[in-house]
C-alpha cells in the first residue's frame, strides 16, 4: 500500500485503478463532506444522503476505469453522485425531510445538534423553493466548486446566464434565510 500524502489527483486515480486502498481512502477523505452536502441538498434526509454517498463512491470505484487519464476526479464523482441520489429518490419514493427526524448526527452536544438540525432544515427548505436551474447553479458553484464556465456547460446555458442563476439563487436564499444565517455577498 502506498503511503498517502497530498498527492496529485490523477496519480491517486491511477493507484485506485490498481487497487490501492490508501489512495481510495484519500479520495474519499477529499470528497466526502461536499458529497454529503450535495446528496443532502437533493434528498433532504441525512440518512439517505449517507446511503447515496456510500453508493456513489462504490459505483465510482466500479467504473473508475471509465475516467479518462488526467481527468479530474471531482466533477466526474459529483455527476455519479447526483445521478445516484436522483435514482434513489425516484426508486424509493423518499419521504420528505419534514417528516424525518434529523437527529441522527453524531454530535455529542445536544444544543448544538438541535441548532444545526434546525438550520439544516431551513437551508434545505429554502433550497427546495428555488427554481431548478438556480438551485443546481448554486449547488454546483458553491458546493461542488465549479466555476461559472463549468456551471454554464453543465446547465447548457451561457456563462452570463450561469452568473445570473447563482446571483439570483443566492439572493433568494438570503431573503429566506437572512434572519437565520448570514449570507455573504458573491
Amino acid at each position: 500500500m502506498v503511503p498517502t500524502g497530498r498527492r496529485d489527483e490523477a496519480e491517486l486515480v491511477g493507484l485506485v485503478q490498481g487497487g490501492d486502498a490508501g489512495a481510495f481512502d484519500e479520495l474519499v477523505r477529499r470528497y466526502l463532506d461536499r458529497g454529503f452536502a450535495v446528496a443532502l441538498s437533493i434528498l433532504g434526509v441525512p440518512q439517505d444522503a449517507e446511503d447515496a454517498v456510500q453508493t456513489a463512491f462504490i459505483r465510482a470505484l466500479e467504473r473508475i476505469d471509465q475516467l479518462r487519464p488526467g481527468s479530474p476526479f471531482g466533477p466526474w464523482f459529483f455527476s455519479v453522485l447526483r445521478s445516484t441520489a436522483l435514482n434513489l429518490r425516484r426508486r424509493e419514493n423518499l419521504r420528505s425531510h419534514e417528516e424525518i427526524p434529523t437527529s441522527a448526527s453524531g454530535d455529542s452536544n445536544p444544543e448544538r445538534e438541535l441548532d444545526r438540525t434546525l438550520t439544516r432544515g431551513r437551508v434545505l427548505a429554502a433550497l427546495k423553493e428555488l427554481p431548478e436551474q438556480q438551485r443546481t447553479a448554486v449547488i454546483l458553484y458553491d458546493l461542488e466548486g465549479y466555476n461559472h464556465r463549468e456551471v454554464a456547460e453543465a446547465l447548457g446555458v451561457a456563462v452570463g446566464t450561469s452568473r445570473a442563476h447563482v446571483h439570483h439563487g443566492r439572493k433568494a436564499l438570503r431573503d429566506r434565510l437572512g434572519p437565520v444565517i448570514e449570507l455573504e455577498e458573491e
Partner: protein
Amino acid sequence: MRDWPRWLESLRPDEVTSARLRSSIVQAAEPLLKARRDDWWEVASRWAGLLTPVAAALVLVFGGLALHGGASGESLALTDGEPTPDPVELLHSEVAPAGFSEFDTNHDVVFAALGEAARQRPRAAPAPRPDGTQPRSVRP
C-alpha cells in the same frame, strides 16, 4: 476547490458522521479493491507466461550471436597486435612494410626481373602430334 460558503456549513456532516461514513465506505470498497489488485496480478502473470518463451528465444538468438561475435573478435584480436599500415600512407612511403623487404616501385626493374625469369625457365616440350611428327616450333 473553494472554501465552504458559510450558509452551506449546515449541510456539512459533523465529524462523527463523517468519520463513520468514511470508514463504512472504505470497508465496503475493500473487496472491490482487492479484486482489482488480484486482476493486476493475474494480468502481470499472464503477460509473464506469454513473454517468457519469447524472452528465452531472444536470449538464445542473441546469445548465439554474441558467441559468434566473440569468436570473430578473437581472430581480430590476433591481428590487433600488429599495427595495420594505412594503404594511402603505403603508396607515398618509400619504406617497405614488413614482409615486403624488396619492395620497389620502379616498374622497369620489375619488368626486367620478369624477363630474366622467363629466359631462365626451361621451355616445356609440346606434346607430339598423333601422326608421330614433332610440331614446327620444336627445333633440335
